[in-house]
């Protein structure tokens, strides 16, 4: 299974540009975009990894000379484990799905009826506050 992972990485290397452009009399350019799905590889005991590459292949024909350039335009990982350090990078892709804001400190206000949180260090405070809030509500 380790070898399959290597194969996926190999595909990245192949996709590097392979030739340089030279001036030409007649030039014809064609492009093809393909997605390539790698095999599902087992990552240790944590699960599978599957990599999908989108590769744009540009063929430039100058006379009888052909120049082929392959560029990776997108990499996605539809299947991945959640537990290895290696997957941390991939997991960080999920962070944009979270909204981000700055921690603020708000005072209690009479609309708050209950106090939640990991309250052990301040049981007494939270409980008496909550009791007070509930009482205030019933006035």
């Amino acid at each position, binding site marked *: 299974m380790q070898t399959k992972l290597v194969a996926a990485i190999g595909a990245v290397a192949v996709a590097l540009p392979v030739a340089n452009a030279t001036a030409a009399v007649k030039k014809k350019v064609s492009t093809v975009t393909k997605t390539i799905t790698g095999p599902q590889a087992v990552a240790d005991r944590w699960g599978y990894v599957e990599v999908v590459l989108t590769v744009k292949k540009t063929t430039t024909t100058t006379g009888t000379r052909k120049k082929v350039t392959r560029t990776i335009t997108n990499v996605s990982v539809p299947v991945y484990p959640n537990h290895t350090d290696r997957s941390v990078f991939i997991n960080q892709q999920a962070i944009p799905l979270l909204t981000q804001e700055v921690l*603020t400190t708000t005072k209690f206000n009479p609309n708050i009826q*209950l106090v939640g949180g990991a309250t052990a260090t301040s049981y007494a405070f939270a409980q008496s506050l909550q009791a007070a809030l509930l009482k205030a509500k019933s006035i």
Partner: protein
Amino acid sequence: MGMPIVVAARDGEVPDEVFDWFRHVDETFSTFKEESEVSRIRRGGLALEDASAEVQRVFARCEELREETRGFFDVEALGLDPSGFVKGWSVDEAAAILERAGLEEYAINAGGDIRTSGHWTIGIQHPLDAQAIAKVVEGDDLALATSGAYERGEHVRDPHTGVAPQGVLSVTVTGPDLGTADAYATAAFAMGARRGPAWTARLRGYEAMTILADGRVLSTPGFPAA
């Protein structure tokens, strides 16, 4: 369980049965009472197969949660201490008692873990300032559990490494079931700042808010912030 429990109802009397239930849970599941079933299991005096059906169900659910959380909620790593689930689960069961008594507008707060029916406004305690609120949550029929470093010292550890997680001040999880929310919050907290928030983004049916030590607050899109 050694924590205060507040039960409030707007549309009727809270039946005594609820408090009898919490006393029963404490007698059965307390890790501080030497003769509780769980204490006997922990010191090897009682085999899990010989425990009551209720205790077996709790441990079975904890095992499912271990798998759901990829090992980050692990009662075995804690020497068979299911407290992280029992707190929320006992509140879920208490809610069922209130429902059977015909109540529809109630709130139960067990040491900061909350379950409500009807519309309630809940302040989530600020992780660095016990006298302030970090977020206000508002909604109908909520279960809300928080795990944080400020809870009982650094008592949540990564069961894989035994190390207290870095960079996270607290994780609050909401969803239909408080026992599950409690276990998810514990797991996400144990995962630390890098892995925890991303993991919560993929939970189904549960929403989460993670407060990081650098002052960032990361919430899933459906988190019921007011």
